[in-house]
C-alpha cells in the first residue's frame, strides 16, 4: 500500500491537459483519496504546437490523510509530446514511470522541442526511466475509424484514452469516469460516443500492455458528511454568494478579465439570478467603483482582480474606506511587478494589501489557505464587510485559485448569521439622520436610498463626525482617522484564538505562514514531527489586523520562521508588530514551496539555535 502517489500530466496546451488532470483528481477524490492539485500552464493560449513554451502541466497527489500538497517529485509522468518530457524530465522520481504518447515524439516534435536532428527523445526517456510508450494517436484513430468526427476532433480525444489507461492502473471504477464524460460532452452525441469509446480502449489496453496495475494507494479518513470536488476560485465565489443570501442582501459583482481572477467572474455568472448581478466593466476601476455604487444601493458588492488590476482599484478602495461602505475586494495574487507572471503563484501583494492606498486607509485583510478554505474565508470576509461597514481585502493566489480539493460542504443553515446595520427609520428624537454616528464597535448605519427620511450625502472629502458634512477641521480629521482605525481593529472580535495546527504551544521552531502555502507548511511540519523534530506550524487567516494573542504564542518558541512566497513581507509585519526576532523562509519563483525546501530551512535554523 502506498501512502500517496504523485501524477504529473504534461502536454501541449491544446492536448486538454488541465481537463485530464481535473477529471483524474475528481475521480481520485470520489474514490476516497485525499487530493491536492497544481496547474502549471503557460500564459499563451496556443503557443506554437509542440514547442516548449506551449507545454501545459497538471500535477496531483492523491492518497491518505498525509496528503496536503500536490507533491514534489512525481511517481508517474504522463507526457503527450517530446517538449513536455523535456520540460518536466527532472520532475520525476528516479524510480518513477513515464507514460509517453509516442506519436508526440516523432521527428517533427523532437525538433520542435529542441532535440538535435537524429536524436530520438523517446530513447532518451527509456534510457533514464521505466517507460511505457503508446502511440495514442494511432490508437484513437483506429478506435474511431467509424466515427463521423474530423481527424482533428478524433485527435482531441487522446486525453480520455490516457485516462482510460490510468483508470486501469489505479483500478478506479470505469463507470465514474464515464459519467464524467457523459456530463462533459452532453451537448454532442458524436463527441460523447468517441470519448467513451477511446476511454474504454485505453482501459482495455492497460490489461494487455506490460503496465502492471499499480500498488494500491491509501485512502483518506475524512470526516463524515456530504462531499464534492471544487477548485479555489469556485469555492471563493460560492462563499460570497452564500454570504449575500444569508445576509438577505442582493449580490453584485464587478469584474474585468484578468488571469487568474477571471474564473471568479465565470463561476458567478453561472449563478446569475434577479438578485445576483454580474457586471463585466470597461476597466478595473469601473468594476470596483460600480461595486461601490451597488453597495451604496444596498447590495453585498464584490470586485476581484489580480496583479495590475488591483493597483488600479487602489483609488476606489480609498473611497470605500472613506464612505465606510461594505465591499469585498478579492486579489488572486500572481507574480509581479507589472504584468509579471500572470499564470504563476506568488504572495507578493501583502504589503500592497496593507498599505497600498494613500492616506491612512486601513482595511481588514484575510487570506485563503486552500481551495476549500476559500469558501469559509470569503464568507467571513463578506460578513466582516457587512457587519463592520468596511471594505475588506480577501487574498488568494494562483495556486489556490486553480487547485482542486474534495469539499465537505456545509448546510446553509449552519453558516453564521450575517446582520446589517440598516436603520429602521429616521431618528426618533426628530434630529436629522446622522450617517456617520457609530455604534460601540465604530460601525456606522447603512441607510440606503429609498429609505424614507434618511436622505443623506456621503463623499470622499474630510468629514465632520456624525453628520458626515464636509469638514477640514483638524480635530474632525483626527477623529475620523482614529474612528476608522478603531473600527478595523475591532474586527479582531471575529478571530478564533491563535493555535498551531499540531496543537503545540511551545517548542524549538515555529513555522508561520499565511494563504496558499498552508499545505506545504503542514506537510513539512508533519514529516519533521514524525521524525521527532520540535517544530510547529501556525497559519494566519487574518493578516491585518494581526491577532492580539500572536506575540505571546510566537515567544513560546525558540525560533520563529515566517515562510512565504515573497521576499519577506509578513516577516516585516510580524517583526514590527510583535518585536519577535523572526526569520524569513522565502521563495519568489512563481512556484509553491516544496517539502524539502521547508525541511531544509527548519534543519538549518534548528542547527543555528542549538
Amino acid at each position: 500500500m502506498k501512502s500517496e502517489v504523485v501524477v504529473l500530466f504534461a502536454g501541449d496546451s491544446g492536448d486538454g491537459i488541465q481537463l485530464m488532470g481535473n477529471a483524474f483528481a475528481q475521480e481520485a477524490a470520489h474514490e476516497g483519496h485525499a487530493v491536492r492539485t497544481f496547474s502549471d500552464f503557460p500564459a499563451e493560449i496556443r503557443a506554437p504546437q509542440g514547442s516548449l513554451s506551449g507545454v501545459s502541466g497538471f500535477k496531483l497527489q492523491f492518497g491518505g490523510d498525509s496528503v496536503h500538497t500536490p507533491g514534489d517529485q512525481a511517481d508517474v509522468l504522463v507526457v503527450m509530446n517530446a517538449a513536455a518530457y523535456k520540460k518536466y524530465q527532472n520532475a520525476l522520481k528516479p524510480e518513477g514511470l513515464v507514460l509517453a504518447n509516442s506519436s508526440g515524439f516523432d521527428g517533427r516534435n523532437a525538433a520542435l522541442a529542441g532535440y538535435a536532428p537524429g536524436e530520438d527523445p523517446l530513447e532518451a526517456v527509456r534510457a533514464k526511466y521505466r517507460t511505457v510508450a503508446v502511440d495514442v494517436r494511432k490508437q484513437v484513430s483506429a478506435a474511431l475509424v467509424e466515427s463521423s468526427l474530423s481527424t482533428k476532433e478524433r485527435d482531441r480525444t487522446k486525453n480520455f484514452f490516457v485516462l482510460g489507461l490510468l483508470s486501469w492502473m489505479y483500478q478506479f471504477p470505469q463507470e465514474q469516469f464515464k459519467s464524467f464524460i457523459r456530463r462533459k460532452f452532453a451537448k454532442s452525441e458524436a463527441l460523447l460516443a468517441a470519448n467513451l469509446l477511446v476511454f474504454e480502449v485505453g482501459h482495455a489496453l492497460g490489461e494487455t500492455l506490460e503496465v502492471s496495475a499499480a500498488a494500491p494507494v491509501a485512502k483518506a479518513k475524512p470526516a463524515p458528511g456530504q462531499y464534492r470536488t471544487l477548485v479555489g476560485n469556485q469555492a471563493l465565489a460560492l462563499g460570497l454568494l452564500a454570504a449575500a443570501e444569508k445576509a438577505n442582501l442582493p449580490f453584485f459583482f464587478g469584474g474585468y478579465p484578468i488571469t487568474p481572477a477571471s474564473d471568479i467572474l465565470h463561476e458567478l455568472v453561472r449563478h446569475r439570478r434577479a438578485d445576483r448581478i454580474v457586471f463585466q466593466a470597461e476597466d478595473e476601476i469601473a468594476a470596483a467603483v460600480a461595486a461601490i455604487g451597488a453597495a451604496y444601493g444596498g447590495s453585498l458588492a464584490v470586485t476581484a482582480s489580480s496583479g495590475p488590476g488591483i493597483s488600479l482599484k487602489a483609488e476606489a478602495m480609498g473611497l470605500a474606506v472613506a464612505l465606510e461602505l461594505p465591499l469585498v475586494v478579492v486579489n488572486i495574487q500572481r507574480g509581479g511587478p507589472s504584468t509579471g507572471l500572470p499564470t504563476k503563484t506568488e504572495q507578493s501583494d501583502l504589503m500592497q494589501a496593507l498599505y497600498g492606498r494613500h492616506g491612512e486607509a486601513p482595511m481588514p485583510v484575510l487570506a485563503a489557505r486552500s481551495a476549500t478554505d476559500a469558501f469559509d474565508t470569503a464568507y467571513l470576509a463578506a460578513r466582516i464587510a457587512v457587519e463592520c461597514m468596511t471594505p475588506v481585502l480577501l487574498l488568494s493566489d494562483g495556486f489556490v485559485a486553480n487547485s482542486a480539493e474534495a469539499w465537505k460542504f456545509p448546510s446553509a443553515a449552519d453558516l453564521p448569521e450575517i446582520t446589517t446595520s440598516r436603520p429602521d427609520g429616521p431618528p426618533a428624537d426628530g434630529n436629522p439622520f446622522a450617517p456617520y454616528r457609530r455604534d460601540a464597535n465604530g460601525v456606522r448605519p447603512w441607510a440606503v436610498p429609498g429609505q424614507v427620511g434618511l436622505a443623506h450625502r456621503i463623499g470622499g472629502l474630510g468629514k465632520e463626525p456624525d453628520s458626515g458634512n464636509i469638514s477640514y477641521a483638524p480635530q474632525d480629521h483626527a477623529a475620523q482617522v482614529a474612528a476608522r482605525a478603531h473600527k478595523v481593529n475591532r474586527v479582531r472580535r471575529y478571530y478564533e484564538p491563535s493555535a498551531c495546527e499540531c496543537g503545540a504551544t511551545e517548542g524549538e521552531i515555529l513555522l508561520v505562514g499565511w494563504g496558499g502555502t498552508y499545505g506545504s507548511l503542514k506537510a513539512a511540519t508533519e514529516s519533521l514531527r514524525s521524525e521527532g523534530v520540535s517544530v510547529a506550524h501556525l497559519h494566519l487567516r487574518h493578516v491585518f489586523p494581526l491577532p492580539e494573542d500572536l506575540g505571546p504564542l510566537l515567544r513560546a518558541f525558540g525560533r520563529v520562521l515566517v515562510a512565504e512566497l515573497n521576499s519577506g513581507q509578513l516577516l516585516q509585519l510580524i517583526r514590527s508588530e510583535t518585536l519577535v526576532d523572526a526569520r524569513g523562509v522565502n521563495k519568489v519563483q512563481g512556484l509553491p514551496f516544496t517539502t524539502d525546501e521547508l525541511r531544509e530551512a527548519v534543519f538549518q535554523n534548528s542547527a543555528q539555535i542549538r
Partner: protein
Amino acid sequence: MATANDYASDQDVRWCPGCGDYSILKQFLTVLAQLDADPDRTVVVSGIGCSSRMPYYVNTYGVHSIHGRAPALVTGLRMTRPDLDVWVVTGDGDALSIGGNHLIHLLRRNVKAPILLFNNEIYGLTKGQYSPTSGVGQRTKSSPTGAVDEPFVPTALALGAGATFLARSIDRDPEHLRTALHRAHGHAGSAFVEIYQNCNVFHDGAFDAFSNKEDKAVHFLPVVHGQPLLFGPNQSHGMVLDGLVPRTVDLTEGTWSANDCWIHDETDRVKAGILAEMHGEVRPFGVLYAVQRPVYEESVAALPPTETASSLDEMFAGQRTWEVL
C-alpha cells in the same frame, strides 16, 4: 407645491461668488420641485471638481465620489436599484479627461441617468489649468504660452460613443436650462447635457458670445424638434443644409425664407452628427438628438437566470456529491 428651497440642503454653498454653478444649482433644484421629485428616491452622484460639489447642496441622497468615476458608480447603482432616480453631475475635466472611459461606456450601454456636464473649459478647483475642452491657444496656468491640444467637442464625443440623448444649454439662460433638464430627466437612457458654465475666476467670459444680450442672437442657435433652425435678431438668419454642409443664410434678403431652412428632427442620427460637430461661431442649443434604445439595466434584468439550484444547499452540492459515513 414644493419649491426649489425645499430641495436645498442645509450646507453652505462654497462656490466662488459669481460662479455659473449657482445658476445651474438653482435651476436643478427648481426642476426637482417641478417634478415633485421624491427626495428619498433621488440620488445625485458626482465625481471631483467644482461642479461635483453639487450633491452636498441638494437635500436628497447623494454621493460625491472620485475623479471621473461617477458614471461607473451610477452604473452599479442603477443595475441594482433601477427604482431610483439617479442624476450624474460632472465637469469637463472629470467627464472628458480622467473619466473619459467611464463616460463613453455609460453612453454606449445607455444606463438611464441624466449627465449634467458643466463645461467651463478649465480646471477650476485645481486653480486654472487647461482642460480637454480648452481651445488651442488658451493661456492658462499650465499653458502660459497657449494650449496646443486639440479640444474635444463634447457633443460629438458623446454621439460617437453611442449616446441616445444629446442636449446643450447654458448657465445664463435659466428657462432654457430647465427645459433641457426636464427633457433629460424624461429620457429613457443616458441623457447627455452639456451645460456651458462660466468660470468667472479662471476663464471668465468663455461663453459670453452665447449669453450676452448683444451677441447671443447671432451665436445661439436654438434647436426645437419640428421647427426650422432660425436665429439672429428677430430670426433674421436661418440654417440650411447644402448637402451635408450647414450654411447660414440671411432671411432678410428675400432669397431665403424660413421654409427653406433645415427642419430639426431630433431622431435623425446623420443630422445629429452635423449639429454635434457644429462648433464654430454659431452653436446649436437645445435637444440635438433623442432616440430610444434598450436601457442597459433593463436588458440586464431581462437576462435569463443561469442559476439552476433552488437553494444554497443545492448550489453547494453542485452536480455530483458523495457521502462519507
